[in-house]
């Protein structure tokens, strides 16, 4: 897999900036106002980023994160050759992961 995740990491003076895009519908739960019928949502609940295997970010998301989520963060103390991974899991139990090596 890993096709749902695009990651770009830039290392400058020890500060790592990650920018990531995940392809995902991020659908909200909707209740039909007439019938009261509930269409369950479909959204990413958890994103975990690891640097050399150690968790540096754990995000918990709800339905309020936009379709095809974007995430950016900065980390101090990374080095070239470090492995950075991103893994997501949604409320239907689907998941995907990707790992890159920092240049």
């Amino acid at each position, binding site marked *: 897999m890993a096709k749902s995740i695009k990651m770009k990491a830039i290392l400058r003076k020890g500060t790592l900036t990650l920018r990531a895009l995940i392809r995902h519908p991020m659908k909200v739960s909707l209740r039909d106002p007439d019938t009261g019928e509930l269409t369950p949502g479909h959204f990413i609940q958890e994103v975990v980023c690891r640097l050399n295997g150690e968790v*540096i970010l*754990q995000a918990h998301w*709800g339905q309020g*994160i936009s379709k095809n*989520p*974007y995430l*950016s963060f*900065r980390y101090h*103390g990374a080095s070239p050759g470090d492995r950075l991974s991103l893994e997501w899991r949604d409320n239907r139990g689907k998941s995907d992961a990707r790992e890159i090596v920092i240049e």
Partner: protein
Amino acid sequence: MDQERRRLLRSGLSLPVLATLVRFGIVPAAAAGLDLEPWPREAFAVKGVGEALQALYGELARQQDPRVRIRAEDLVENGAVVPIRVEADLPEVTEIALLAEKNPVPLQGRFRLASGMEGFIATRVKLAESGRVFAVVCAGDGLHVAHKEIEVTIGGCGG
């Protein structure tokens, strides 16, 4: 190396100093990452900003803090995709949460950050209608809160 880092931590070096040492590779960056926590079901089920914060952080003291800044447009046309970034000029930021008071589910997301992470997060959120967006930053001694009024021309709950 890790013991060395522990020793330095215990030595009472201030965090900015330590962060600098880490940055120049003198002290290795935090070897111990975060322990994973379960998805906070209740915080995503409640209907108010206050209740969501209560569910996430209990009675932890909250204060408005100008060192927390929300960067987003004042007026957005499409509430389905609202770029937002939070910058917290605070040491030891361990978590950032984003909430929208007018959304059916106010809590949009919480971002737990390991040591070494900057107090910064950027993402894109949905806004059902015009109203305040809250950034809640967990740093050392408590919760530091900022809010921003965002006007939405087309709501974002159809997504």
